């Protein structure tokens, strides 16, 4: 490596490279994560960003009218969105953790199936039934999965918990009596750093017996 590489104002690639820093959206795999986003891509993304539309979303059996950009994810609407009346939607149970479909922290149900809300564009969620962790309980009656998570202490910090709860409920929708192996596979799209897994497995077992 040269001792000192002069990277002054004329060096476009250096500048463009830094424009791509910190966005968290550029990289997809190891190799591209060290690549440089070029100016055109960045501008194109921003160009798209300007276009917005008003759409209707059905969340937890309630209809919301929201204005979204093409790039707006379902997760962004749930957590940070505002309806056209200016009210925060504020469904913050689903979390953004990995921002790339790896951790399941953002899991919600779309038409009864678990979906990573960070990977779904809001416009693609139109006309579908979206259920978030906030919509699982029936008033004060918790969903059996929720009851079982509390009973077995299937949570510590709890940050991953909403994602696991929704994934577990979706798993039991599809397979009412899963074996331990099936539970592990069914929840393999979710990550917990505190290490609550053993008690999560117990909780799902218990919930399946009650449902």
């Amino acid at each position, binding site marked *: 490596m040269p001792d*000192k*590489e002069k*990277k002054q*104002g004329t*060096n476009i690639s250096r*500048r463009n*490279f*830094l*424009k791509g*820093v*910190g*966005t*968290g959206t550029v*990289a997809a*795999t190891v190799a591209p*994560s*060290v690549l440089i986003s070029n100016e055109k891509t960045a501008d194109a993304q921003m160009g798209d960003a300007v276009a917005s539309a008003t759409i209707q979303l059905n969340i937890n059996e309630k209809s919301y009218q929201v204005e979204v*950009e093409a*790039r707006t994810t379902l997760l*962004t609407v749930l957590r*940070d969105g505002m309806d056209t009346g200016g009210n*925060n939607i504020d*469904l*913050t*149970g689903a*979390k953004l*953790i*990995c*921002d*790339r479909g*790896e*951790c399941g922290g953002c899991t919600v149900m779309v038409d009864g199936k678990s979906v990573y809300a960070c990977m779904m564009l809001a416009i693609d969620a139109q006309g579908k039934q979206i259920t978030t*962790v*906030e919509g699982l309980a029936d008033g004060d009656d*918790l969903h059996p999965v*929720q009851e079982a998570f*509390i009973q077995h*202490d299937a*949570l*510590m*910090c*709890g*940050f*991953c*918990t*909403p994602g696991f*709860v929704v994934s577990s409920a979706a798993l039991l929708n599809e397979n009412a009596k899963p074996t331990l192996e099936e539970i*592990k*596979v069914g929840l*393999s799209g979710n*990550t*917990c*750093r*505190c*290490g*609550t*897994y*053993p*008690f999560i*497995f117990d909780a799902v077992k218990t919930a399946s017996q009650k449902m």
Partner: protein
Amino acid sequence: MASWGEASESRLIGKRVTRLSGKDKVTGKAKYTFDINEPGMLYGRILRSEVAHATVMGVDMSDAEALPGVKAVIPLIEVGKKLRYQGQEIAAVAAETDDIAKDAIRLIRVDLEELPHAVTEEDAMADGAPEIRDWPSNQSEPNIREDGDLEAGFAEAAVEVEATYHTPVQTHVCLETHGHVAKWEDEQNLTVWASTQGVFGVRNDFAQRFELPANQVRVITEHMGGGFGSKFGPGVEGHTAAELSRITGKAVKLMLTRKAEHLVAGNRPSMTQHVRAGATRDGRLIAYDMKGYGTGGISSGAGFTGPYVYHVPNSRAERVNVATNAGNQRAMRAPGHPQGAFGMDSLMDELAEKLGMNPLEFRRINDPNEVRQAQYTLGAQEIGWHRRNRVPGSGTDVKKRGMGLGSGQWGGGGGRGTEARVTINADGTVEAVTGTQDIGTGVRTVIAIIVAEEFGLAPTDIRVTVGDSAPGLPSGGSGGSQTTPSVAPVIKTAAAAAKQKLFERIAPLLEAPIEDLRVGTGTIYVVSDRTKTITWKQAAGQLGMESISEGGTWDEDLRQGGAAGAQFAEVEIDTQTGAIRVIKIVAVQDCGLAINRLTTESQINGGVIMGLGQALLEERFMDAVTGRMLNANLEDYKVPGTLEIPEIKSIVFDTHRKVTGVGEPPCIPTPGAIANAVYNAIGVRIRSLPITPDKILDALAEKKA
């Protein structure tokens, strides 16, 4: 002398109690810093360096400032200053939406003069290595510890082992990234929601930074999504959030991205140790000579333990801290211990094999700790130690099984510095308040259990407030496994004092001396005449308009440090693919009095799983050429998932009735136990973590050759 009483007298303490915060957490109601939505709140983002070493020649923020929706752009480094690692802060923005903030970050132009970097220990230690920071050398003065007479020790040794053990840098991977929501209520009052392990430390830091009286800063951490030692101060991101809020007059949320979390939010330093050790024919560890180094990135602090746990009369250990152009280390769950324990427990097995001795037997001879001696017996029974491979690597099956063990030791005795208040209101409600924080350990529930036990109530009857500096009742940071042992004694004495006050008020009513009063279940009665009884509510009703509110005091006798642990692992290796499956782990963990057995088991499980990640999966990859981290995401930086989880038998090994913290110790013995089990299965030793299939296949191929 205060005590927790006998187990037989306890209604709640030591039992399995579900978490008070459980319902909020399973319904999504629990609000983390990341979930705070203040009216008009702006979103902050930080532009970070993508290069490991450079001088900043210019920062042009004008395009970013001109972007609609951007409310503030501030530089975080001066022109002419050096960037010393990927991820270092350059500038920050606040905008109406997070997407606009993202766009604005892209529009900031930075001119850099790149400098040579060294991101690996080897590059930083090489002759002519670039100067990483303004230290005389990239390597610290060695830290040397000597004991006994090394030469005499080796002279006495019948067998010797010489080996090099390595553990890479690991990152904390808190699922809630570091971050804050900062909001100036007016020019003199700052409110900060912080994802922190130390509410009061963060409060004091902000107060100092913005020159405010401490009580004009309020820090709130109702729930937080994992810290593991990395979340104590506000850091650059916290100060930046507050500064952006000050400039804009709006609340500002600034959470790190997942990538930044890997790069700058702390890590467990690496360890490379070269050790030569000897044992006598009758199995006494007699000499230990170790030279090692590690990197904590741009900061110092890359220490690790060794010799560890076992008694060795003659030893010398020399450790060097190596600076590299990478984000700084922070305390990570039992700092220095898991890496040291992996080295030591691998070494112990290698010596035992040379002696032709059962590794368990070898430890029995050399471990002076009586608690662990008992744990060895129990753990061996639980795993079925007799089933292990007599001859490591023997057998002809494609899939081979093996067993190993590892050991650990931790403090966790707690300390002074917590203030707490327990209040009994006239309507019978009870409040307990202290400035600690629940980082997932369940201290909120622990507090409720203690107060409920004292008052004869249910834990859910106690309203517990933690994670807020506003009541002005400080407590220390949650580090060193100190939270429960620090908080529990003060809560207990506060509750006892409040109960005493209540007894004083109602003794005349019950026509009995105060000493004769006892709490039942929701009642207070006279011990000498059990017909004289009133309900808790009636008793509290006597208070009229007043309430009883008592503080607590530190009580040395209610806690104790020193937590021994031993773990046994069984693994299965596919010798064709190198795949490693952990089948079972038995974790026997000393933790004194486990106030809540349920959450204590959770903590042991969690420690074991983090140790499993260190053993088999986790490694920060730095690219020597570009100076960048290659796996700063959750896809390529692997943490354990459901498919890696073995059967875990967490045994709460309570040896006394004093409180000891247990957050950290269960992650210590795991890597050593797994590494030894791998050896027992295939008969080749992997001396560097993580133990991945490629290493297994290479080692097997080498053995064949």
